[in-house]
């Protein structure tokens, strides 16, 4: 198995797919249907290949596996790929969400289908690349490259204010990331390499750490996003097409969380420890403030977008406790949020396709017309607020547990976020699903189609499975997390 460059295959199958797509004509309904099928099969194929990773993954090995290392630009900067327990789940999350996204856009994308699918395939390449790359320049390449297709996805197929939103998204994240580029170059010059494995055991002086940490932090802070730099996210989410929101919430935000675990605390433990209270404060503020903002939203997508910021607050809280529990909690929270918030955006997409509005007040009483939809929506809402038995609970619980061991005050404030999450989520659910049908056009709403069922079933299964039996997930994550924590402890001593 180790002979096959399976990660490269995963990364470049979508690129091959793009070539296929370019060959298919795009002039009538039939051919655009063909395009969609082709893209779906390509991404499905990728998903199955990524599942094979799970089977050949060595659970007891905390190091990087499936490693590929080729000379690329010059000595020090190489094409170096590999995954460990931290990144493997993100790769699978990505390959799972992309076919779902393509399936979800079967009906809603009416024009320029070819460009749309090409953008998605390109985006998949970049996203998988981010989680697999073990070289900082390669990482940056994938991290930033993802902006191009996302810019087009929001800008071409988005809502009314799409141009404003997509520019904001692009320039915000670009401005954040360029300082990371400078930091990467500095690392390259002072250590002579950008190889992650080498750098993980390299000791930066504490002054270097502070500066470099800040540079990496600006990039990840904007991307994850943390309060007060989260304002691009609601705009981008609201204007993006459903599938765009799904990918944005499901994977793009996780790239920053992954970056925090791999680079910020891995390379710069001293600085991370120094800045941890700062991160905790920002996270707690984010959890409380954005939860309160979510409470007053009148747009469904905006509400879920703000709740994403709050959930990401838990992730950063967990990561910067430097405990095994905390980091595990952060990762599980990210995976769970990747499934749940993606599903929530899909839920919004379902009713948006029927009524073409996201205004909460326009809805009400859907339960009588759409029972299956109401059921799925309920599962995801409950998972989002962290009900025990759903995936949302596991992550939040581990994070809160670890933060209590570090600092009680932050823990207390963070816990109020859980209450607030329950408030805005349940209120949203009540306003949309329950009550009497007042609006006439709502009585013509029909329940989930078969295509939509196919989309929701795996997500529901995963949400409940992870909630009830998180052991397999933890088994995958634990060895690598322990290794990271030990490394930090060693460097700190």
């Amino acid at each position, binding site marked *: 198995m180790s002979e096959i460059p399976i990660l490269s295959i995963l990364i470049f199958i979508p690129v091959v797919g793009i070539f296929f797509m*370019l060959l298919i004509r*795009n002039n009538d309904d039939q051919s655009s249907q063909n395009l969609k099928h082709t893209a779906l099969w390509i991404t499905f194929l990728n998903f199955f290949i990524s599942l094979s990773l799970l089977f050949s993954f060595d659970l007891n090995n905390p190091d990087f596996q499936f490693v590929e290392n080729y000379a*690329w*630009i*010059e000595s020090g900067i190489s094409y170096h790929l590999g995954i460990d327990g931290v990144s493997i789940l993100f790769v699978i999350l990505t390959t799972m969400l992309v076919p779902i996204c393509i399936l979800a856009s079967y009906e809603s994308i009416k024009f*320029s289908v*070819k*460009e749309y699918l090409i953008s998605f395939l390109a985006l998949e390449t970049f996203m998988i690349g981010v989680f697999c790359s073990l070289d900082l*320049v390669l990482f*940056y*390449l*994938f991290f*930033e*490259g993802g*902006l*191009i297709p996302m*810019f*087009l996805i929001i*800008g*071409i197929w988005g809502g009314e204010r*799409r*141009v404003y939103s997509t*520019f904001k998204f*692009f*320039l915000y994240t*670009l*401005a954040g990331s*360029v*300082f990371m*580029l*400078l930091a990467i*170059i*500095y690392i*390259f*010059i002072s250590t002579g390499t950008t190889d992650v494995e080498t750098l993980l055991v390299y000791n930066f002086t504490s002054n270097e750490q502070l500066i470099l940490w800040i540079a990496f932090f600006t990039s990840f802070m904007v991307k994850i996003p943390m309060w007060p730099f989260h304002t691009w996210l609601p705009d981008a989410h609201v204007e993006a097409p459903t599938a765009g929101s799904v990918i944005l919430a499901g994977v793009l935000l996780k790239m920053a969380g992954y970056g925090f675990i791999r680079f910020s605390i891995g390379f710069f433990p001293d600085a991370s420890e120094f800045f941890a209270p700062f991160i905790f404060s920002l996270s707690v503020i984010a959890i409380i403030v954005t939860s309160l903002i979510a409470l007053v939203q009148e747009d469904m997508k905006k509400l879920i977008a703000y709740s994403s910021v709050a959930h990401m607050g838990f992730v950063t809280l967990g990561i910067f406790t430097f405990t095994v529990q905390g980091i595990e909690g952060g990762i599980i929270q990210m995976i769970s949020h990747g499934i749940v918030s993606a599903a929530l955006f899909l839920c919004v997409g379902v009713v948006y396709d029927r009524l073409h509005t996201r205004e909460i007040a326009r809805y009400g009483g859907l339960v009588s017309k759409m029972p299956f939809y109401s059921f799925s929506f309920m599962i995801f809402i409950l998972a989002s607020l962290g009900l025990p038995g759903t995936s949302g609970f596991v992550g939040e619980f581990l994070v809160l547990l670890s933060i209590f061991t570090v600092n009680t005050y932050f823990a207390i404030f963070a816990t109020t976020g859980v209450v607030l999450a329950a408030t805005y989520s349940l209120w949203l659910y009540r306003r949309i699903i329950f009550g009497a049908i007042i609006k006439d056009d709502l009585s013509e709403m029909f329940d989930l189609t078969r295509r939509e069922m196919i989309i929701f079933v795996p997500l529901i299964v995963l949400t409940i499975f992870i909630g009830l039996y998180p052991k397999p997930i933890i088994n995958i994550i634990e060895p690598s997390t322990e290794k990271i924590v030990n490394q930090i402890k060693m460097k700190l001593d």
Partner: protein
Amino acid sequence: MQNLIYILPEIFLFIVATVLLITGLFLKNIKLINSLSIFSLLVTVILIFNQPFQSAFLNSFVVDEFSLVLKVMIVVGSIASLIMFVSSKDDLNINIYEFPILIIFSTIGMMVMVSANDLLAMFIGLELQSLSLYVLAALNRNSLLSSEAGIKYFILGALSSGLLLFGISYIYGFSGNTNFNLIAVNINPESLGLIIGIVFVLAGLAFKVSAVPFHMWTPDVYQGAPTPITGFFALAPKIAAMGLLVRFLFNSFGEIYIDWQQIIFFISIASMMLAAFAAIAQTNLKRLMAYSSIGHIGYALIGVACFTDEGLRSLLIYLMIYLIMNITVFAFLLSLKRNDGYFENISDLSGMHKNHPLRTMLIALIMFSLAGIPPLAGFFGKFYIFVAAIESEMLFLAVIGVIASVISAFYYLRIVKVMYFDEPKEEFDGSSIRSLNLLYYPSSILIIIFFIYPSPVINISEYAIQSII
């Protein structure tokens, strides 16, 4: 006589140009003359490759690795603009057979520039290049804009040549030599007169590379000149002047680099920042490209300011990528034709992805590349520039550079926005652009797949700089 071998490519081109000039009088077949010019430029490339590395004419003319690489780049730029010319001459109303000949003359001037190792050789090359360019800018006699561009360029260019000559006289006066190497030997670091000389020469050269604050002519000339000529302005002369700048500063004033470094430092920052902000308000694509080239020159100058191997290497990588990107952009500009008229406004691109999906996709990627977004080639150009800047501890330059690149991303994105997000307009003609596709597709694909195998460009740059430091 021995010396003549070292300037064989230049002599060859000169003979070709003269013969073509006379033939053109009788033949009036512009296409043939153009094809012959392209052919002889290709022959020149072979001649350049076969030249022995030597210095000639009492060391005032050097043939080395550096000049070889730059000359090839210049000739490639000239060939590209000749191809652009032949595909657009009828519609632009520039059916003038002198065009290819003037391009060749200017190319000779540029080849002399990059080989010049003496203040006089430098001035001769520069003037031959500039005088041909003045005429080229005003080539479209029926167009008011073109004549205005020519006059403007001529007056400002003459002024800058005057400044340059003034600086040269100071340097000669205070060092007693005109040869770069002899100046370096006899340099007196304390001499104020020498510094004044350097400042004036740099002002003249900054004009030629259109760096701020000597950039004022660029937008007007870019807009006014016929597009193939604008393309030529953006491609070859910038590279030649940059090569000259490097040789002048590195060979003769390496010892007092502290003094000139701050000048380059300033014009680099000023170019990057001014271009980033000024380009935002532009509505004309050629004007926008003018500001874009000012900005790119600002980045390239970071490589000069570093005064290290790394800096020089990054400069050459940057120039090569810049050359290829600009070939694509200008080939693209010439394909914007509807009902026999050319369009130059950004708003004319509106929604063109509906009618020309592939062409739009490629140019959109080129725009991202110009903005320096990975994984496209433009990113690697900037990457190496920043590596060089940080290595020589010029963090400030690197920080300004990244900030300017974020700001300039805005105006490149605006073009993508207009092409993709806005309502579509009429289709563009696709008939006359077949020869342009020859430029457009290969160069844009080179930019896109550059990241897979970047080593050739890096190796070429390393090969070129070994003769300078």
